[in-house]
């Protein structure tokens, strides 16, 4: 099987100078932001995002443009939180995007904030990603220096502060309302919804929460238009996706492809297939909380709708491959132990249920 990646977000990502503002600009970076402030109305940008059909890349796959349009239009203080907590087992694409191209994310955050009238944005990055957080700190400082952040950006009346906030190790903080509590300086317990963050989020204000990869797409869409974006991927899953492939494959790593490519092309073509002498037994198609699929489903297209139809999910786009050396009950037990460890303990079904799942699986494994 032969397949090439379609690198939009990861284009030039092997060039180490892309991390710096000069390197990013040498490839056309921040020109879209300048154009947006010069000649685009915030509402036009929101419309373009909505028409593009960009779906959240963090797990739920909700329309990004719709999320923006849910924010109130008034003058109240609104916030943006970029969810960089990436802690679903199997997911490591945001790490790659932040480490190799931090300014692509910052440009997306500034444009989205301009479009939604947001004055303070945060990047909530998991504490384990210390090196990536350092890279973001440097990039944010460069962006302030260049006038892309701060007061009266590029002579407009839009002000935007951007704060990089390091977490400290808790899976649950990837859940958006737990993330808000952690950002407010509390234990990261999820909140009851409603109210939804778009109405009442950070510090009680309307809050837009988007994943790193989602926001990294924004400047590309605004520069090239919704139709350009829709020329990639499928009707219901437009665009490209950075897919993290790991487990028992020859070449684990991040690959950027159009949504809708065959799973077989991803797992065999790009990741090299199973290790020599082994066969694939099962795989998680969208991180460790997605129901596993089997080799019989390898010819399905990798899209939000096809994964949902197969009764699983695309999630954050993380494929974990198990081969014939892996015992499925052990794999289930390992996964269940993770969820037991990471349960924040607030709600009974999870606090008690994860414990019982582990106990039951331990009995199964013992025979």
């Amino acid at each position, binding site marked *: 099987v032969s397949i090439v990646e379609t690198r939009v977000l990861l*284009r030039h990502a092997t060039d180490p100078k892309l991390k710096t503002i000069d390197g990013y600009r040498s490839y056309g970076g921040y020109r879209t932001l300048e154009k947006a402030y010069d000649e685009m109305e915030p509402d036009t940008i929101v419309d373009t995002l909505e028409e593009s059909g960009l779906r959240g890349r963090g797990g739920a796959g909700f329309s990004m443009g719709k999320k923006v349009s849910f924010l109130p239009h008034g003058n109240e203080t609104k916030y943006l939180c970029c969810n960089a907590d990436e802690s679903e087992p199997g997911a490591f694409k945001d790490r790659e995007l932040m480490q190799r191209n931090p300014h692509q994310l910052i440009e997306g955050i500034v444009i989205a904030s301009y479009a939604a009238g947001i004055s303070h944005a945060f990047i909530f990055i998991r504490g384990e990603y210390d090196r990536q957080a350092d890279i973001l700190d440097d990039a944010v400082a460069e962006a302030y220096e260049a006038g892309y952040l701060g007061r009266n950006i590029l002579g407009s009346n839009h002000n935007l502060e951007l704060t990089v906030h390091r977490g400290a190790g808790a899976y649950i903080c990837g859940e958006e309302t737990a993330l808000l509590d952690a950002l407010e300086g509390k234990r990261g317990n999820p909140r009851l919804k409603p109210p939804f963050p778009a109405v009442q989020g950070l*510090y009680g204000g309307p809050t837009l929460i988007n994943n790193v990869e989602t926001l990294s797409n924004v*400047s590309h869409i605004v520069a090239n238009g919704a139709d350009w974006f829709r020329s990639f991927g499928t009707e219901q899953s437009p665009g490209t996706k950075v897919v993290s492939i790991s487990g028992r494959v020859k070449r684990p790593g991040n690959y950027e492809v159009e949504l809708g490519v065959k799973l077989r092309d991803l797992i065999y073509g790009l990741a090299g297939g199973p290790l020599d002498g082994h066969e694939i037994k099962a795989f998680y198609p969208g991180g460790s909380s997605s129901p596993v699929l089997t080799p019989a489903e390898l010819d399905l297209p990798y899209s939000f709708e096809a994964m949902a139809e197969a009764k699983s999910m695309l999630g954050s786009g993380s494929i974990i491959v198990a081969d014939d050396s892996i015992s499925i009950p052990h794999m289930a037990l390992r996964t269940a132990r993770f969820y037991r460890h990471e349960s924040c303990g607030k709600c009974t079904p999870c606090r008690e249920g994860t414990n019982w799942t582990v106990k039951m699986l331990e009995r199964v494994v013992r025979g």
Partner: protein
Amino acid sequence: MDPFSPSDDFEMPGLPVDVANTTGRDALGEPEQIPELSDVNCPDGLRESIEASMAKYPDHKSASIPALWAVQRLYGWCTPEGITQAAAVMKVTPAYLESVASFYDLFRLEPSGEAQVLVCTNISCWMRGGDELLDAFCEAAGADRGEAGHGGALSADGKVMVSGFECLGACDLAPMVSVNERYYGPLAPEDAETVISQLKDGGEVLPEKALAARPLPGGDQESDDERVTSTKGPNQ
């Protein structure tokens, strides 16, 4: 009358949220007080770092995680004295900060040596030998394997902490470790001894296995897709 609705003259008890959040050390005792900065002998560097964090947020309490990071970086772990100092700067009770610290796996509430090795044992690393790697690190460091799997164990000389850990977000490096907050992998069990001795000598750890040195798995092959090459956005 609807029996589930409160009567008209019902008033919600005024919960003093901050106090409710910050007592609890002794359920029947006096609420813990916010320490005075002049009483806690807080080093200037720590105070300045916490104040700088507080200034970055609309609500200064948001700085509790950055403040705990500052304490941990200064003292090696979140010492009770350090937490009290941070609490005095932030004007919250030490119990409040302690309640936050105890929620997050990366904050250490006990002495944890000069170097920390977190060994991922989650699904992808487990499939590639993560448990065996943790065994090897415990053996190389002389750390208790049972404890290492439940929150961390110190090496025999107290210098290195080894801890099994949940997914660190680097399944492409499986099996992998985080050594002093930098990622390395894939490692073989034999590498454990090298890493431990490099740490004890104060040397650089396995530079050729660092995440920073790792290329994209697909190499630097760029797509010649016209939609990509003709982009008007970034990454032209």
